[in-house]
């Protein structure tokens, strides 16, 4: 039994013409404690809906989510969320946005204790000094997302949900904050579930990537293990023999197979197929040699 187990989750919405639209059906997968899992898929496949169900902000049409063996319903401090649009309270300073969460988590703490704890997590994402007293409107997009990440980590939830946290940031800022996220994450045993659109981001951060087919009737088709050892570094992982093999597999899936596999209703328990690509291992472990790169980038 996994730490977090999602069992036969189905979501349907009225399609506006009297019928029902099935976004995803019988999605089942598990996440282990301390694991960093990314979910990749095209828009409309229901990634955000899955996230909202895990956060307890939405109810599935059917299926259950169990954490530590208990069914999950409604939002809880055990499941922290970092929203794409930061969702900082604009009338509070960066520091108070973090203390807001810590106070809710630890009602018994003194003011000084709450503030010290909050400042510690803000400094982990590189926010120190006077900048913590600024209001979100006086911070750049990158800084706002740092505050949001600090708020989530400071609460030390059992499960941290990240909903495309870097989607609204420019590529350079995104890189910096990915590094900070890795840094703050590696110091904890935090279990993370993250939605992303960015393949490289997913490879850099995740232990495992879940691949979703296109909707309607989307499903979690594959679970790809990232066989690149940690600690990872964005400039070094691209040198790893597995990097392009994994990347090509993901690109192939999103570009072609997510469409081919889409659209078929099914009643089985749609457990994802585990894919392990490891070019450093002996040859028989090779999963899909046809996706292995024959050529590297032109400049190489």
């Amino acid at each position, binding site marked *: 039994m996994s730490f977090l187990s999602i069992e036969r989750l189905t979501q349907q919405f009225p399609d506006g013409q009297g019928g029902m639209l099935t976004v995803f059906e019988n999605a089942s997968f598990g996440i282990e404690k301390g694991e960093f899992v990314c979910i990749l898929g095209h828009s409309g496949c229901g990634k955000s809906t899955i996230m909202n169900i895990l*956060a*307890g*902000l939405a109810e599935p049409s059917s299926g259950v989510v169990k954490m530590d063996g208990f069914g999950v319903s*409604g*939002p*809880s*401090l055990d*499941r*922290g*969320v970092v*929203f794409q*649009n930061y*969702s900082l*309270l*604009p*009338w509070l300073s960066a520091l108070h946005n973090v203390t*807001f*969460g810590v106070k*809710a*988590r630890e009602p018994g703490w003194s003011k000084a204790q709450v503030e010290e704890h909050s400042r510690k997590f803000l400094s982990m994402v590189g926010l120190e000094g006077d900048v913590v007293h600024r*209001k*979100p*409107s006086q911070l750049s997009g990158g800084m706002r997302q740092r505050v949001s990440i600090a708020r989530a980590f400071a*609460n030390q939830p059992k499960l941290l949900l990240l909903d495309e946290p870097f989607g609204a940031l420019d590529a350079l800022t995104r890189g910096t904050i990915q590094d900070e996220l890795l840094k703050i994450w590696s110091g904890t045993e935090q279990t993370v579930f993250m939605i992303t659109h960015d393949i490289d981001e997913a490879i850099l951060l995740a232990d495992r990537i879940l691949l979703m087919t296109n909707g309607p009737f989307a499903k979690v088709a594959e679970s790809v293990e990232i066989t690149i050892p940690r600690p990872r570094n964005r400039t070094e992982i691209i040198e790893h023999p597995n990097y392009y093999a994994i990347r090509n597999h993901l690109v192939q899936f999103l570009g072609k197979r997510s469409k081919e596999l889409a659209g078929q209703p099914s009643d089985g328990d749609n457990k994802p197929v585990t894919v392990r690509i490891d070019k450093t291992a002996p040859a028989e472990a090779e999963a899909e040699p046809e996706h292995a790169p024959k050529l590297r980038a032109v400049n190489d």
Partner: protein
Amino acid sequence: MMGTLSENRRAALLSVSMLVIGLLIWEAAIPAQQAAGELTEYELLTGGGAPKAGVPPPSEIFTKAWEELSNPFYDAGPNDKGIGIQIGYSIYRVLSGYFMAAAIAIPLGFLIGMSAVAYKAFNPFIQVLRPISPLAWMPLALFIIQDSELSAIFVIFICSIWPMLINTAFGVAGVRKDWINVARTHELGAMRTAFTVILPAAAPTIITGMRISIGIAWLVIVAAEMLVGGTGIGYYVWNEWNNLDLTSVIFSILMIGVVGMVLDSIFTLAQRAVAYAE
């Protein structure tokens, strides 16, 4: 030289010159009261020497203002009280009615804003009651309450409740879903969500409603006091009109404007205090 002055200074200079020019034109346009000595015997016999009522020149109003403002709180009987006392009565009535209205409108507005059912249930009543001129309530209030003082306060209450109610409901209903979700994922209870998330998020809209209400209340109190009489700045204006003392009428009009401005600027400060940028 104009180019070196800041925008504010130039505006102030322009304001002052408009005021001075306006006052000079006004002063010059009022024909001076002819001295009795210059009149013919016939004119004196026909009453030409008696002081005629007329719009007073600004100089007279300044003299009057100086007189009144140097002793604003004297009380020489029911028909002769200082301007400070009259304004005090009006402010007392406005604030009592206003705070009663706020005490009902803001919690009720919260409820209406948070619940779609409550919104739909209350909306027809609000839509019918809101456009009623507050003074139309006066006869009913006088009959039921049997007290002119309380009736005036009731009229203030009924006119200031609507903007506060509607703005509170609107502000609360418009709080971003994301912020509510932040409260939910932090397991905040209903009361804590209301006070730590919804109230600060809706505060600018609520204060705007309160500002509109105080403006309307101050407009209405003058008319209400003209009706109920006794004390207050509205009564004062009407009383001086009956006395044909136009100098006092103009002076009190100015005072109504000044007090209204002060009330409004208090809310401007409050608005600034709760404003936030997204």
